[in-house]
């Protein structure tokens, strides 16, 4: 009771701040800026449109930057009656 708490220790706020900055700045400095994403989006759309009829807005790109690893999630919606088209 005295001196320690039974609750799980909360992460130190200053350490959290430093960790968040390090991850973010590593991405920003590496120049891996998402500036290429509009182009990437266009290219993906074009490639798919060669084979399927899809809407311009049908693409959804999500990114999660992590420590050492980032993930890019690309969702493309197309109408259910695709084959009939």
């Amino acid at each position, binding site marked *: 009771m*005295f001196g320690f708490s039974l609750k799980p220790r909360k992460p130190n706020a200053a350490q*959290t701040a430093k960790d968040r900055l390090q991850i973010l700045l590593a991405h920003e400095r590496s120049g891996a*800026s*998402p500036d290429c994403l509009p182009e990437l*989006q266009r290219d993906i759309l074009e490639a798919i449109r060669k084979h399927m009829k899809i809407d311009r807005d049908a693409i959804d790109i*999500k*990114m999660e*930057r992590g420590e050492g690893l980032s993930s890019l999630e690309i969702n493309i919606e197309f109408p259910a009656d695709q084959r009939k088209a």
Partner: protein
Amino acid sequence: MSKIIVVTSGKGGVGKTTTSAAISAGLAKRGHKTVVIDFDVGLRNLDMIMGCERRVVFDFINVIQGDAKLKQALIRDKRLDNLAVLPTSQTRDKDALTQEGVEAVLNELKEEFDYIICDSPAGIERGALMAMYYADEAIVVTNPEVSSVRDSDRVLGLLQSKTHRAEEEGAEPIKAQVLITRHDQARIDKGEMMTVEDVLEILAVPLLGIIPESPAVLRASNMGVPVVLDDPSAAASAYEDAVARLVGEQVEMKIGGERRPGLISRLFGRTA
């Protein structure tokens, strides 16, 4: 009918982004569909304060320039499902903010959101002017300190002259209110800091709230959590009161510092 509210100040470092995050989260907590937009092109920071910096893909400028759809750029908050963030570009400059582009994005946001909070950059240049241009209301963030109060006065002048409501014949002027941040009662008692009354006497606009100087604000920004979504604190409850007033409730103005932990809780090693 949705409302556009600009959070502005002129001077930097007074708490605009902290306030934008806290007010928007506070509105969302009360059930209002809320979006908060970063207008500080080139110096993006709202994403960090909201804790969504790792999820930025497209931004406000991409939407204005037609490179992305609005729904692709909006980041939905993971804690509150009626809260969204529209981040700005870290690489472009303020010239990318065109008036027509800003208007188009705001009009599209109005279709979904009840409140649109515009987080203004410091200064009175393009980004700041664009952030305030279409506002219905303004929150002028002010520290009880000479340069901040002076800059607030300048910004209040711009709100009454350089905005859509100012230019439109017959439109109601922007409703501007002051939010005093970093208020320190101990220093006021010692005569070291201007009082709320002093500041209001000079600026002559209504008071939205008084946010006490509080360690909770730095903690919240370290963690990437709007202060009203973090552990209870004097700053959080002051922001909650400000939000209540913003939506038209009558809430008594409280001047409170951080509640000091009593002897017992200190003895028992209450953390944080």
